[in-house]
């Protein structure tokens, strides 16, 4: 298979990572060599194999529905790059 520049542009949009032409070409080269390597999996027949979603063979534990941490507003907002009183600030979204 081959990942072309159009596909790279599409993935970059989905990933929310901007790429220019030069970076797109480099990424196409890298991804193609990585996917060539990944193609090896197609040697295996897996039609009747159950997918493994978790190696931890336990069921999720239930816990009581109690609030354990409160008044975290200042902590939550503390590391934001831009804030205004109690809010995160982003570029204008609604015209």
């Amino acid at each position, binding site marked *: 298979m081959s990942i072309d520049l159009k596909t790279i542009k599409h993935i970059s949009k989905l990933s929310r990572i901007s790429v220019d032409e030069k970076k797109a070409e480099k990424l196409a080269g890298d991804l193609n060599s990585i996917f060539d390597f990944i193609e090896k999996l197609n040697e295996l027949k897996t039609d009747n*194999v159950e997918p493994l979603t978790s190696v931890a063979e336990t069921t999720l534990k239930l816990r009581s529905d109690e609030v354990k941490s409160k008044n975290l507003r200042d902590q939550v907002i503390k590391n934001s790059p831009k804030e205004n009183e109690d809010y995160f600030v982003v570029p204008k979204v609604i015209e």
Partner: protein
Amino acid sequence: MSDITKQSLSELVENIKGKKLSSSEVTKAFVERSEKSKELNAYITEDYVNALNKAKKFDEKPNLDLKLPGIPMAVKDLFCTKDLRTTAGSKILNNFVPTYESTVTQNIWNEGAILIGKLNCDEFAMGSSNETSFFGNVQNPIDKNLVPGGSSGGSSSAVAAQLTPITIGTDTGGSIRQPASFTGTVGLKPTYGSCSRYGIVAFASSLDQAGPMAQNVKDCALLQEIISTYDEKDSTSIDFKRNVYSKELTKDIKGKKIGIPKEYRVDGMPKEIEDLWKKGIEYAKDCGAEIIDISLPHTNYALPTYYIVAPAEASSNLARYDGVKYGFRAEGENLIDMYEKTRSEGFGAEVQRRIMIGTYVLSSGYYDAYYLKAQKVRKLIKNDFDDAYKKVDAILTPSTPSSAFKIGEKTNDPVSMYLNDIFTVPVNLAGLPGISIPAGHDAKGYPLGLQIIGKAFDEQNILNIAYAMEEKIDFKNNITDWWIK
């Protein structure tokens, strides 16, 4: 005492408990050596002043019943430490100061240890040489311009160079065991679910595990018993009966069945690695173990599986870095533009590459062909181990297919870099514990490691085998302090 930093963790604990050394003396010694070792670039953030103050406080009212009384310790910068910058080796978290503490580090401080700094690592733990860190390469104390392995490269370098008596790393595909092997140190990746992931910057959540990195097996066992606790803040933490690993440690491994998987004899493996493995088999026999040939038939499919599963999980985990809630933000013309520029400027090349791979394999039309396929092969890989463990108690392999390589040697070819983890990745995919111990040197005098893989939750057994073999191997690290002027 000028030789304080040469002492093992166990010796330091004993000397502090016996009041032969104070925490201040010990902390000062490691801080001074760390300050003289800036050329290694093992630290991202130093916390020396606070550490010395904490040591002084400890000495005023020492609690000598603790397991790590006043012991200074630097940790990988992937663990969130309250009020101390935590970067994950990334520009995007350059200014992030956590308001909470990871469970694993909290367990360490609860036993009396003192944080002296945060150690360098590959960006978001994605790398095998510490070269993807935003904060630069780390030098391997073994030789100049040699990589210390990765992603826990600052950790392996710092332990080998004796800048910290012991440390913790994280291991998603080999990030504890491979750097341990490259630096002549001991590194344990515990069973998935053994150590809480709460407060560890996430890379691939179904694979990530924290674990100890030490100068010897006994120290490693002691730290493992401290960091491994059930934690309800991590929904994949497992509530099983944990051993008191250092107390139960024994060299008596007579009659233990150790498997040798023929598929680990990979094409192009250097003769030195093959010889090391043969020597390892002899050591195990000398300790009274029984050697049994086994087969793990899907070994060759582990790396391709990993390079679907890990990037897929990473692309999802790293979606949180959007320039809004914390971390670096680049200005943009609108919201989407701000996201795209923030992530493009904030993440390094390897992280972007993996996010792109992960996004692609999860995208509409490709999910079944890649992600689902990989999950199925992951099941086959786990089945291989389950079958093998019907016949054996543990498995012995080399830790890495080569010794440490030069800085810059593999940076232009991602696939050749990924091949470093060929012996370690299957263990993460199956959720098993694995330990790397130093076992010899190559022709250049660089350390080589052997890996012992255990059954799930059987850390005690692989620690015991490692402990017995360590004595037979009698490895000596040849470090000349070349970086100290």
